[in-house]
């Protein structure tokens, strides 16, 4: 058994060559979609470490995404840091905020944690919206691109894609290292039965904070890349809509796999572009997608690919009288 499986390798190779056909065809629009997909793949992947492994339901990943983006851009603009260094400033800022939110959240689980994280992401959005002397509020914050490359054209897109790809590789391999290692088993054990882990002499708080730190770091990194690529940060990226987009990606791809959320990130970003005409109905559609995935394929796309058996369907009108197994497991979402 090695840290990286064949599926992971296939995925990395696929992700590394996917923009090339579009570059050859000079399809800048599709190149743009690909870079966005890759950024969302990092987001969904690091969200999956929290939910799919440690079992922490963080419903406000977009807040850390925005914090990463804004801190990175502002630190480069006001402190004159190099844009590459500022990527880390953004991630570290997200990590610190993640720990600050994680610490009081350790004792709460499930829907309570969900409420707290949604509340926090809304607070973060309102701060960005209202502290306009530094964030420029609703006008959005213009961000300069990485120096030395043209602002438009295929080179710009490809450069950003492969720079983000470096971030993606680091994120994916680090998360894979964690999940395949001894720590990974502890995280999964915390997801399954927290009390039992405590009686084994393991400090659950420490491992939960570790998860928060790692996940928020990479979420912030994705935000920093996003700012440098889209060249404009707006409070919209901290919205709950964006959080649930990330969550939908991870669930559709299959939580607890890391590869699934990456695929989900690509599939849903592309779908998102097709649904641009239905901007208001979009999230109704995503809600329906989550319900359908939970009912018919709880393992998501990865579960389907692995040929995971889907649970016997229990329609509401069938529950009475049918031999329904008593299920004490926590729901998947």
């Amino acid at each position, binding site marked *: 058994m090695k840290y990286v499986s064949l599926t992971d390798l296939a995925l990395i190779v696929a992700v590394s060559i996917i923009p090339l056909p579009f570059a050859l065809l000079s399809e800048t629009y599709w190149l743009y979609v690909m870079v966005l997909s890759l950024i969302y793949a990092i987001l969904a992947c690091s969200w999956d470490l929290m939910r799919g492994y440690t079992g922490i339901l963080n419903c406000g990943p977009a807040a850390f995404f925005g914090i990463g983006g804004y801190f990175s851009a502002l630190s480069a603009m006001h402190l004159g840091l190099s844009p590459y260094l500022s990527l880390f400033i953004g991630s570290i800022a997200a990590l610190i905020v993640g720990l600050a939110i994680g610490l009081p959240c350790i004792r709460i689980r499930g829907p309570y944690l969900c409420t707290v994280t949604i509340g926090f992401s809304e607070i973060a959005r309102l701060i960005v919206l209202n502290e306009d002397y530094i964030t420029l509020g609703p006008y959005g914050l213009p961000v300069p691109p990485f120096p030395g490359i043209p602002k438009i054209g295929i080179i710009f897109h490809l450069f950003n894609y492969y720079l983000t790809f470096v971030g993606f590789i680091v994120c994916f391999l680090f998360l894979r*290292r964690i999940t395949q*290692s001894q720590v990974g088993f*502890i995280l999964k*054990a915390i997801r399954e039965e927290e*009390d039992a882990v405590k009686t*084994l002499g393991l400090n659950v708080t420490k491992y939960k904070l570790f998860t928060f730190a790692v996940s928020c770091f990479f979420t912030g990194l994705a935000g920093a890349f996003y700012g440098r690529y889209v060249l404009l940060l707006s409070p919209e990226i901290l919205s709950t809509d964006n959080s649930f987009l990330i969550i939908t990606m991870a669930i559709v791809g299959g939580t607890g796999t890391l590869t699934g959320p990456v695929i989900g990130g690509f599939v849903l970003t592309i779908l998102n572009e097709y649904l641009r005409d239905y901007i208001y109905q979009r999230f109704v559609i995503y809600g329906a997608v989550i319900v359908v995935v939970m009912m018919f394929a709880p393992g998501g796309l990865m579960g389907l690919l692995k040929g995971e058996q889907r649970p016997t369907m229990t329609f509401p009108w069938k529950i009475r009288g049918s031999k329904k197994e008593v299920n004490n497991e926590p729901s998947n979402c």
Partner: protein
Amino acid sequence: MNLLTVENLTKRFGGLVALKNVEFNVVEREILGLIGPNGCGKTTLFNCVNGFLKPEEGSIKFKGENIVGLSPYQIARKGIGRTFQLVKIFPKLTVKENTLVGLLGGSKASTWSMLQMPTRDQEERIDALLEFVGLLSKKDEVAQNIPYALKKKLEIARALLINPTLLLLDEPSAGLNPAEIMDQIKLIENISQRGITIIIVEHVMKLIMNISDRIVVLDMGEKIAEGKPKEIARDKRVISAYLGAGFIA
């Protein structure tokens, strides 16, 4: 020498007194039975010793050190392992992975040094222990798919891997058939022979009378008797607590 000393232990849930001035000692290497009618506070006592609950009054001394107020993981690190009445295994992990988590808990390694795959040495220790409890053939099965009796054994195996000096077993034979109970008795005796002190909470008298060196009886949160199994079986207060005053011969 006393391994565990419980003194004046009182635990209240609001107005309800779950434990009232409970006092007892556990001598090193003995098997102490803890019995009493339903709701008499046996599991509450375990939860106090183990750190899940904080008693209002009294002290619990383990190896001469007061452990009241420590968190469960710190108490586990001092060498107190436990199992649960309703098994709390990690259902979606395999048997091997379940025990691995126990081994890691006992190893006290840092997070960074644990960022590697399980080593051969660890696998060997897990295999040895799984063989000891008789689970080696089920090593790679997902824990939720193994029979209930084996789940109970798995929980014991996991607790043993943290190298406890004191093991708290909460109803190790609840829900098992007679053959499985005999098996469980053998396992508990083997564990005791390894030099581990054991406290057992149990309702199955066949098991508790057979293997306990001493028995403590609780009723309504109070200790009503303590002594050798044979003395307990004849004790008037115990019979009255279990069956009612009319049954005292």
